[in-house]
């Protein structure tokens, strides 16, 4: 069987995928699904309310009662980790959804309209590139106040040009392919061509970019919370937990910072590898 036949005619079997190393994709996808489920069902899974603490039982090591120990205020670390998954995943999800939507809209419209509009969008993206995301987030926090809203707005602005530039490049190539011209010849409107053909054809690239950007957004948001500018205490969030646990870490109780770090690393590694695999698959397909 030729490679072309394998790609076009028959989907690869599990064994074939396994030979390509794709079980890793399944494992990582499984981990991500598990973490999302933990976040969704945190109230059912967490042994304690996230803010319930007994300061006299602070900095306890792992035990039957507290699987990951307690933090410096005597709160159950496992419970906070489970609840923390909610805000830790919600923030980057919002950033990526908004940034991807704006990026695709900007990129497709600039490619389709072309001319001065394309130039204007290109300059706008160049301008946005000049602002580092974290700096923009700090500025937004100064104007709006600490919390999730300001960093989400700022990072959405910061991530949009990165995604838009890649989408624009791919869309530009698609725009000049014969099928678009054929669509125009048969009388399809610009909206119809963009929504039915152009966007679906660039979507694998968008998916790959969004997946990779998710990891970066999660790290950025965690960093903002770590600096005290994002999610505020007593809410549970992984970046905040890394920060909160620092003193305990120095004093010999690493569990809070460590567990939050591990969660950040697992999610970031998983989405990055998944994004990489999606991009690889796109390249092969191309």
């Amino acid at each position, binding site marked *: 069987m030729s490679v072309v036949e394998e790609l076009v005619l028959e989907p690869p079997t599990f064994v074939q995928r396994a030979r390509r190393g794709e079980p890793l994709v399944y494992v990582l996808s499984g981990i991500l699904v598990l973490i999302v489920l933990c976040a969704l069902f945190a109230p059912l899974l967490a042994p304690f309310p996230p803010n319930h603490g007994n300061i006299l039982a602070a900095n306890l090591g792992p035990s039957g009662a507290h699987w990951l120990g307690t933090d410096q205020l005597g709160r159950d670390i496992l419970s906070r980790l489970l609840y923390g998954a909610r805000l830790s995943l919600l923030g980057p999800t919002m950033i990526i959804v908004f940034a991807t939507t704006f990026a695709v809209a900007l990129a497709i419209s600039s490619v389709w309209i072309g001319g001065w509009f394309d130039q204007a969008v290109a300059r706008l993206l160049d301008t946005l590139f000049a602002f580092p995301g974290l700096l923009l987030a700090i500025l937004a926090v100064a104007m709006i106040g600490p919390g999730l809203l300001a960093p989400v707005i700022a990072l959405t602005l910061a991530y949009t040009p990165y995604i838009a530039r890649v989408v624009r490049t791919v869309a530009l190539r698609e725009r000049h392919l014969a099928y678009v011209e054929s669509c125009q010849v048969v009388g399809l409107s610009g909206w119809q061509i963009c929504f039915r053909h152009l966007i679906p054809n660039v979507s694998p690239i968008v998916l790959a970019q969004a997946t990779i950007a998710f990891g970066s957004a999660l790290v950025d948001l965690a960093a903002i919370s770590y600096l005290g500018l994002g999610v*505020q205490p007593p809410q549970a969030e992984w970046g905040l937990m890394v920060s909160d646990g620092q003193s305990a870490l120095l004093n010999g109780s690493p569990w809070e910072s460590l567990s939050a770090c591990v969660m950040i690393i697992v999610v970031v590694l998983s989405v990055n590898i998944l994004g990489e695999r999606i991009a690889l698959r796109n390249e092969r397909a191309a």
Partner: protein
Amino acid sequence: MGVFVSKGIMHRPMRQRLVVLSAALSIVSLAVTSPLLGAVAAEASSKVQYTSTSPAATGTLSSLTWDLPFGEPTTLDYAQSADYGPDMVTSNLCDSLLRLNPDFTISPNLASSWSYGPNHMSLTFNLRSGVKFWDGHPLTSTDVVYSMLRNVNPKVNPVNGAFYANVKSIVASGPLKVVVTFSRPDELFIKEMATISGDVAEKTFLVAKGATFGTAKGGVMCSGPFELTAWHPGNNIVLTANSHYWNTSLEPKAKKVTLDFITDTSILTSALKSGEIDGAFEVPSSTLPALQGSGAGTVYIGPSLALYDLAPTGQGPSVDPKIRQALGMVIDRSALAKQIFHGAATPNYTLIPKPMGWDPTALSTYQQGWNDLKEPLSPAVSAAKALLKGDPNVSKSITLGTLATNQNDLDTSTLIQQEAAQIGLHVVVKQLQPLQLSSAFFVAADRKGIDFLLTAGYLDVRDPLDYLGLIVFPTSIFNYLGFHNATVTSDLAKAQSTFDPVARASLFNQAQAIYEAQHIVVPLLNLNEVVFMKKGITGATTSFAYIYEPNLATVGAAK
């Protein structure tokens, strides 16, 4: 945010993974070593020393790197200083008329002697001869008078003017003689002359620099053991030893001192453990076990006049005495002192805590007044709930301003949030950067939207009237609530004019009973002074008196 497209889609994830994996390895390393550190900490608790002084330094140092408490100072103008950083630095630059010793006693300094006139209506200072400013000009009574009068000159924006409230005039009655006359006798004034309120700078320099005196641009001209060499805003302050210092017993042991502005607890702890910083006052006690166990130096815990409070700003629910009282009833101070401050603090329930060395002859009177007030040590959640029943302010959220970089403050704020929630109060923590918090104490606009400030205030000297003068009078600088009670004002004014310690203590007790009923602050803890010096460094004062003495002059090499 990283650039993940600039070099192609495939390269960036690989780099990201490497970065993330490196981070993972670092954390795993920390996780492995931290329990070991903890074990060491437990074994090394004997490395804590409870004392007002550390062993005297015997050797000199070419340079010393010290961390400033709570970061970069807002000013080095003694007349505008009322915070840890400014006071600590200024005390190394400028001499005060009298000297505060490590045990909080007072002794001669620029004034070699002093005497009261009839009925304590005047006070004469005899100045020491042979004292010179850094530029070589001799110190005269003209400099002293000009320097003292700046504390009541509104153009200077002085912050310690309350201590000059009873001063009628300050005049030079000779080249080395200054006479202060009072509108009414003032027992506190002489004690304040051992603090920054009694600092002296060169008149010609003060006049020449005007509003820029004490800034990074204008500099300072004083007679203290260190000269201000450079102030690099946002970076550090560099001091150089004054080789012609008049007080040979306080001749600096270090030729050059670099003062860093590290405020983050973890970074400071790491810098102290690694020896990058030679020492620090006001070390956050949240990492005491880590420092004790590090073997990098010695932790000293000394007596202090510092108080940890929730200060109402006079906004939102903080104006409600019931809210303030209820908050005070639910906060578990013993747990706070033990778990967050690791024992370097004791619970406190009153604005002026139990007698901490007030006039010994009136100790029993002070003690009696305090005994009448003290509250139960354990939190009273049910009673607090009952107190707030039907109070319309319960439904309003309370914004608590706290220092973003200090782990003690962050943990305490979160604990207060949790405990307030038990009685239905919703506390929102607003993290403030060091300069923001410092400004919030003095500028009303910077307190906007904040209902309480988590503060570590302090008495300058061992006299309760020192602190009360800043808080309970209608014109007091820290009276954010606008508290006004004619009896309190009258009793405390009388107390300040009373030189009989027992009679003064009685007047204080009467006023205390009234203002405590209003819960004008939510007292939390009496703090201990926590000082760290790395191996080979010694000589620092380890009591809170460091703040008004040339604290770095005695720091040098150990044997």
